[in-house]
C-alpha cells in the first residue's frame, strides 16, 4: 500500500442549497494524529462521516491507504471498513442497550464472520482488558457503566478488527475533565501500540494540543488554516484560529488574556491578505476568492492574494 493512511480530496457536501463542507483537502499521514477543529456547525463532523462513507459526499474523493473508496458499493466497501473505524461523542447512544458489553465488542467480528463464537468471546474479553476494564464486564450492560467506561467500550469495538485508521468524533467532549484525560491517554497508548493513524475531531484545543501532530481548522465548511500543532499554537495566522486559541482556559491568572469574540462579518473583513510576491510557491492569481497559501513549511492559511508588490 502506498500513500497516506487517509486522504480527502476536494470533498464537498451540499444539503439542498446549503454547502456544509466546501472543497476540503485533508491528509492523515500514517502513524499520525490529525486534529480537525472548529466550532459546532463548521462541518467537521460531516467531514468525518464522509471519510467513513456514512454520509455520501456531493463531490470529491476519499482515499484509504492510497485506494479510492469513493464509488465502491457497500459490498465492495466492506473489506475496507475493517481498516477504518469510528468512535462517537455520545457514549450512551453509541452502544446498543439490549446487548452485553461482550456482544458489543465482538459484534465487528460477527459482522465480518471472523472466528467461532467462543473465539470471539475470548477476543472480546482480551479487548476489555486492553482498554482497562475487567474481563468480567463482558456480561454487563451499557447502562451499568459510567460515561468514561462506555467510551472505552466504543474504543474496543472500533479497534478489535485491527483498524489502521480511527476517526474519533469528539470522543471526550461529553466527559468530565478527569475522565477525559484517561480516555486521551488510552487513545494515545493505543495509537502508539498499534501504529494507528487518527482523525481526531474536536473543539477542545487543550486535548488537541496534547494529542495531535497536525491541526486543521475549519470554519463554515472551509479549511482556514492547517499546520503542525506547535506552529498553530505558537504562531496561528488566521484570526479565527487565534479566537479559538483565546478561548482555551489558562491556569495562570496573570497570563489571562482578554478573549476575543469575532462576528462573521468581522471575520470576513479580517481574512489575511497577501501580495503575490510574498507567497512561495506562486498562488493562483485569477481569483478574488480566499485560497490556502503556504506560510512556512507545511503551515497553510486561507488568505486573499492580490497581484503586485
Amino acid at each position, binding site marked *: 500500500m502506498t500513500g497516506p493512511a487517509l486522504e480527502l480530496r476536494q470533498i464537498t457536501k451540499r444539503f439542498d442549497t446549503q454547502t456544509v463542507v466546501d472543497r476540503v483537502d485533508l491528509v492523515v499521514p500514517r502513524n499520525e494524529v490529525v486534529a480537525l477543529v472548529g466550532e459546532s456547525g463548521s462541518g467537521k463532523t460531516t467531514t468525518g*462521516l464522509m471519510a467513513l462513507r456514512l454520509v455520501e459526499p456531493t463531490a470529491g474523493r476519499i482515499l484509504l491507504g492510497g485506494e479510492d473508496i469513493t464509488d465502491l458499493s457497500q459490498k465492495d466497501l466492506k473489506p475496507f471498513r475493517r481498516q477504518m*473505524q*469510528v468512535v462517537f461523542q455520545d457514549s450512551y447512544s453509541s452502544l446498543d442497550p439490549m446487548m452485553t458489553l461482550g456482544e458489543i465488542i465482538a*459484534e465487528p467480528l460477527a459482522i465480518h464472520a471472523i472466528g467461532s463464537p467462543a473465539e470471539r468471546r475470548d477476543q472480546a474479553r482480551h479487548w476489555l482488558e486492553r482498554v482497562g476494564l475487567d474481563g468480567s464486564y463482558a456480561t454487563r450492560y451499557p447502562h451499568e457503566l459510567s460515561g468514561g467506561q462506555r467510551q472505552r467500550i466504543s474504543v474496543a469495538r472500533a479497534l478489535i478488527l485491527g483498524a489502521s485508521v480511527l476517526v474519533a468524533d469528539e470522543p471526550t467532549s461529553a466527559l468530565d475533565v478527569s475522565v477525559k484525560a484517561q480516555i486521551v491517554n488510552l487513545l494515545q497508548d493505543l495509537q502508539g501500540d498499534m501504529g494507528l493513524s487518527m482523525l481526531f475531531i474536536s473543539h477542545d484545543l487543550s486535548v488537541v494540543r496534547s494529542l495531535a501532530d497536525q491541526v486543521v481548522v475549519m470554519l463554515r465548511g472551509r479549511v482556514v488554516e492547517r499546520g503542525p500543532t506547535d506552529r498553530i499554537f505558537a504562531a496561528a495566522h488566521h484570526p479565527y484560529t487565534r479566537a479559538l486559541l483565546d478561548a482555551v482556559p489558562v491556569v495562570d491568572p496573570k497570563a489571562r488574556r482578554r478573549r476575543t469574540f469575532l462576528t462573521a462579518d468581522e471575520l470576513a473583513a479580517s481574512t489575511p491578505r497577501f501580495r503575490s510576491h510574498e507567497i512561495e510557491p506562486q498562488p493562483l492569481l485569477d481569483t478574488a476568492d480566499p485560497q490556502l497559501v503556504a506560510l512556512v513549511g507545511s503551515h497553510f492559511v486561507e488568505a486573499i492574494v492580490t497581484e503586485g508588490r
Partner: protein
Amino acid sequence: MTDLSAASPALPRPDSAKRRSPLYLARRRFAANKAALGAGIVLVIIILLAIFAPLISRTGPNDQAFLTKSLAFPSSEHWFGIDDLGRDFFTRIIYGARVSLGIGLSAAVFSLVLGLPLGALAGYLGGRFDWAIMRIIELFSVVPPLLAALLLATLTRGGVWAIVLIAGLFGWVNVCLLVRAQVKSFREKEFIMAAQALGASPWHIVWRHLIPNSVSPVIVGFVLAIPLAMMLEASLSFLGIGVQPPTPSWGQMINVGMNFMYFYWHMAVFPVLALAVTILAASLLGDGLRDALDPTLKGR
C-alpha cells in the same frame, strides 16, 4: 500492551452477581407493581379456566340439561345458577371466557401482524411512506372505533372472525404508533451508525439492533390490544351484531340478562362481573408492562 489500569484507578471492580439486563430490570419493576402482578395472576386463572373448561364442567355450554330448574338461583350445585334455557350458567361463563379471550388474543395477533411491519417501516424509512401511514392513522382517529365497528359489523353480519378482523383493524393503530416511535428514535442512534461503519448489512441492523430494541413496544402494544378487542366484542355482541347465539359471549349474556335482572339478578351480575374483571385485569397488566418497559426509564 500498556498497563492501563494504572491510568484508571477509580474503576470499580464489577460484581458478577449484579448483572442486570434491561429486561431483568423491567421484570423487577413489574414485580414491584402489585396491581399489575395481581392482575396478571387473575388473568392466568381466567385463562386456565377457559382452557380447561371441558374438564371443569360436566355439561357443555349449550346443553339444556337443567330445563326443569330454569332460572334457578346460584346454589352449591350450580355456582352461578341456571339460565333461562336450562343451561348451567357457570359453564356458560367459563366458555364465554374462551370466546372473549380467544377474540382478544386473535385480534391482538392481527393488530401486531398489521402494526409491527407498518410501524417499523414507517419509522425506518420515514419520508413519504411515513407520511402516508400517518394520514391513514389520522383517519382512524377521527372516526370513533365503536361507531365504525358497528357499521362494519352490520356489513359483515357479525360472527367471530368478523369481530377479530374489525378489532384488529382498529387495534393496529396503537401497535403501529408505538413501534414507529421506537424505531424512529433508534434509527438515529449512534450505535446504528457504528454498525454501518462496521459494514453491517441492513438486515443485520434490523435483526440485531432494531428488533431487539422494539421488544418493549411490541409487548405493550400486544397486551393493550387484548382488552380493547374484548371490549369491542362485548359491545357488539351486546347490541346483537357481534358473536351470534348460541356461541356463549359475555356481551350477549348481559343483553339477555338485562331482561331478567329485576327478578333473576344472577343472569346479569355474573356476565357483568366476568367481563369487568377480565378487561380490568388485562388493562392493568398492560399498563404495568408499559410502566416496567418504558424506554424512558431504561438504563440509568
